[in-house]
């Protein structure tokens, strides 16, 4: 527990209004978008890098774990205080510090919402490319921690492809700048390491990102299939024929019905699956791609290939895609969104295997995902009020993830390991791999003060982790 004197010390570094310590206030911070929980002892809202540094030093003096948090939309428990301690929440550090239109760069604080960068530069023909589904609420700081993706990362790359410089606060309070605005400094690629390190190496207090130029033309296609296999074979062939759409998303029939009930996106309810394919670029380029994709779809028995008539219909399609999780929330008390990744040619067999697992466990598992880069998001609907239900949901999920590994895939494509999959890490990594990752971890975070209990399996490579409290079992209804 943190005593009142210590709370006062944190208040003195900030202000009483920026320190939460009452249980009812802390409750809101024990969740993120995952199925896990972990309650901090204190939530502090810094307003500057200097404050972050002082807060980290104070926490270090008292041996308190520190966890950074953006909007709490993460899906692997990355922003949860697994072992209690101090949570630094960044909503007050939400300023866009500089925009360089000429060189297509923006420098922002970690609490800036992803989409707000695009909003700030769209009138100048620019945008920030990585577009996670939660982009209207998730923050850049969280995106950095998890190396966030999104539908359009198929063509434009994930967060790490767009981050050129960072300001860090290390666990001893030291402030260090890494990378460079131009993005090509000699030496080790520290930004490449930090992005996706899940808050286990440093806190990020300032970020410089690349801005992209809006394409001249956009075309959105909706290919409708009566058979799921046909849809997944279409995706595999689009890849194999080296057609490169900006986005290629799949929604299965059951999921799109749930979406239609909620969003009315205009998806055909009687189809087995739809592909939402977006083409971007020069008018001449997307005309050729559109023809090629139409051919592949029809060769795989697409019932129809619809083209969004205007910006309004395009936005409606995407609204359906991006609000799918909300739509499914209406069907069951809770849903568990998985994140697996497979070689793209293995899509048809993997979707069949997911259907078998769903049947064996008696769950409805929906599929709505980034098909173009083999990044699956099966969604398991379950009832958290029945603990055995959650347990079985997790067992089914693990079986799906194991299958992804079997066919040559990975544990996570964009949600991160966090405290969701840290015990699955030995499926991929050897003791030697863990030993090196651990030494890299310790080069930045030697006492596991930052985000303990994440990424590493608890019994491997992270021996001195200070697990003080277990998951809370109570459920807020």
């Amino acid at each position, binding site marked *: 527990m943190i005593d009142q004197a210590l709370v006062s010390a944190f208040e003195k570094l900030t202000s009483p209004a920026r320190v939460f310590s009452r249980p009812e206030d802390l409750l809101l911070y024990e969740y993120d978008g995952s199925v896990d929980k972990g309650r901090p002892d204190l939530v502090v809202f810094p307003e500057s890098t200097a404050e972050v540094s002082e807060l980290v030093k104070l926490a270090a003096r008292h041996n308190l774990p520190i966890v950074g948090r953006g909007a709490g939309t993460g899906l692997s428990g990355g922003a949860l205080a697994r072992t209690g301690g101090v949570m630094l929440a960044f909503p007050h550090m939400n300023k866009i510090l500089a925009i360089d239109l000429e060189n297509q760069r923006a420098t922002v604080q970690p609490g800036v919402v992803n989409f707000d960068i695009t909003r700030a530069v769209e009138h100048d023909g620019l945008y920030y490319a990585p577009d996670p589904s939660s982009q209207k609420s998730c923050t850049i700081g969280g995106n950095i921690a998890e190396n966030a993706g999104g539908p359009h990362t198929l063509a434009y790359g994930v967060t790490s492809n767009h981050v050129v410089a960072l300001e860090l606060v290390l666990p001893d309070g030291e402030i260090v700048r890494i990378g460079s605005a131009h993005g090509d400094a000699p030496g080790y690629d520290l930004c490449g390491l930090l992005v996706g390190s899940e808050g286990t190496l440093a806190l990020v207090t300032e970020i410089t990102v690349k801005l992209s130029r809006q394409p001249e033309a956009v075309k959105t296609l909706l290919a409708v299939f009566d058979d799921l296999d046909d849809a997944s074979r279409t995706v595999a062939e689009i890849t194999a024929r080296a057609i490169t759409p900006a986005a290629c998303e799949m929604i299965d029939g059951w999921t799109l019905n749930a979406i239609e009930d909620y969003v009315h996106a205009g998806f055909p309810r009687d189809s087995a699956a739809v592909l939402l394919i977006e083409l971007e670029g020069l008018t001449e380029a997307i005309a050729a791609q559109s023809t090629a994709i139409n051919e592949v779809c029809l060769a795989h028995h697409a019932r129809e290939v619809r083209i969004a008539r205007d910006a309004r219909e395009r936005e409606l399609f995407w609204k359906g895609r991006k609000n799918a999780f909300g739509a499914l929330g209406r069907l069951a008390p809770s849903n568990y969104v998985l994140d697996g990744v497979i070689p793209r040619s293995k899509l048809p067999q993997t979707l069949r295997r997911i259907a078998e697992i769903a049947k064996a466990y008696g769950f409805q598992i929906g599929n709505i995902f980034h098909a173009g880069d083999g990044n699956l998001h099966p969604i398991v609907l379950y009832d958290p009020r029945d603990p055995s239900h959650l347990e079985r949901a997790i067992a089914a999920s693990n079986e799906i993830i194991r299958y992804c590994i079997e066919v040559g895939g990975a544990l996570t494509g964009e949600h991160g390991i966090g405290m969701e999959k840290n015990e699955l890490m030995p499926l991929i990594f050897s003791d030697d791999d863990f030993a090196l990752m651990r030494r890299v971890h310790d080069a930045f975070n030697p006492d596991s003060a930052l985000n303990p209990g994440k*990424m590493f399996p608890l019994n491997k490579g992270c021996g001195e982790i200070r697990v003080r409290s277990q998951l809370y079992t109570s459920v807020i209804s």
Partner: protein
Amino acid sequence: MTVSSFNVAARLQSAIGADHVIAEPASLAQYAVDEILPSAIAKPDSAHEVAEIVRFAFTENLAIIPCGNRTKLAIGMPPSRYDIALDITGLNKIAHYDPADLTISVDAGTPFNDFAVPLYKQKQFLPLSVPFYYLSTIGGIIASGVDSALRHSYGTARDFLIGAEFVNGSGALTKSGGRVVKNVTGYDLHKLLIGSLGTLGVITRLNFRTFPMPIESRGFVASLASAEAALELCHAIAHSPLTPTSIELLSPQLLQLFLDSPESDVSDPPSLPLTGVFPENSWHLCVSIEGTPEVCDRYVRDLTHLSQQTAATNIHVFGSNDSQGADLWNYIGQSIPLLLETSPQATIFKISHLPGRLATLIAELTTIATQSSLPHVTLARASGIIYFALLPASNGAADVLPAADDVSPSAGGAALPAADHASLGGDNAANIPLLAQASAAIFQLCSRESASASIPWCPTALKHLVNVWGAPRPDSALMHRLKSAFDPQNILAPSRFLTL
């Protein structure tokens, strides 16, 4: 052979078998790094043998420099110790190639051409046509961190390297990433290996995403009176909907170097010489484009229009199958090998900055070179990279070069001495202090400008006066800590990047 070197070779032989160890002086000389010779060469056949060798070195505290075909071993500071050259060319298989997934996994010692051909047969490629690529192993390309013109649209290796296996400094075979195009499982340690010069690990295997070959590609060259004018055109292109494959800016002296170089062997029958195609004393903006014929037509149309608006004095378009165009782009891609061939003592800077600052930088670099009476050559990438080569001044350079105030930066500065000038390839010890002075001035300029600078290629003698990596940076301490995490005993290419 010294006693100690005999010992290293003999001990290595007893540890890993005589078959894999070479110690003849003539062979050792071929593995020299900055004129320092190893005591033995180890040539393993597998990643496990690599690990065995590193474990042996770890136990015996011997320093290793890993290498492939040794085309880029000049990059870096002289090693503080060098006992074993670890030649990984015995690791040369394609481990996986899944054309339908657009991913490939190759052993680090695989020559570039050995996997470029199977990729080509599937109409795919890896955008790494870096200097020396046709002689290089993929491990060497990644470890040296060299870039190519294609970075403009495809990015650098960090954007398409998706996984790696390597032996760290403790001799453990480790990995990161995987064989899928999207992956956030664990730390991206493989990104750290890019440009690490073997200081963090001995790379044994690399996984990449591959790219579809374009349907058609063409070249567009606009000639302009000055670097500033050419960069204005770059600006106009950057603010248009066009996204060319590459945009490279050649100084007048660089084009002259191409024209003077021996005939290229890329085309059969040999193509027409480039002589007379471009106006002299101009800067040339070379834009490559790809796509369907309709897309290429559109590019040519728009680029022509933009060039006319920015006062280009000449425009030349190379069609898809034009061997002259192929020659030109091959020269551009291999500018550095060409420069080093003509002038082995060249001091070549790589400078990175924001695209909008290139014009100022080029002008200031030219001033520094001119003040030192050093001939110089510039290759700039529109995305914000400048390769700036200072060439050794010939004896009595001041006599053959125009006086500094006669040379405006826009004309490209001091002229290149004739290619057959005796001094070009010679040893120019007298030039070293002058080069050191100019280098210091360039590092100061870059530091003032918040640009990054390093000297990938220069005479070894200069490295005793100048740190080719420039002054320590704010993140140097973190890099030291990482080096210790990967290589606790500092046996991997010690001091080549960080001086411990």
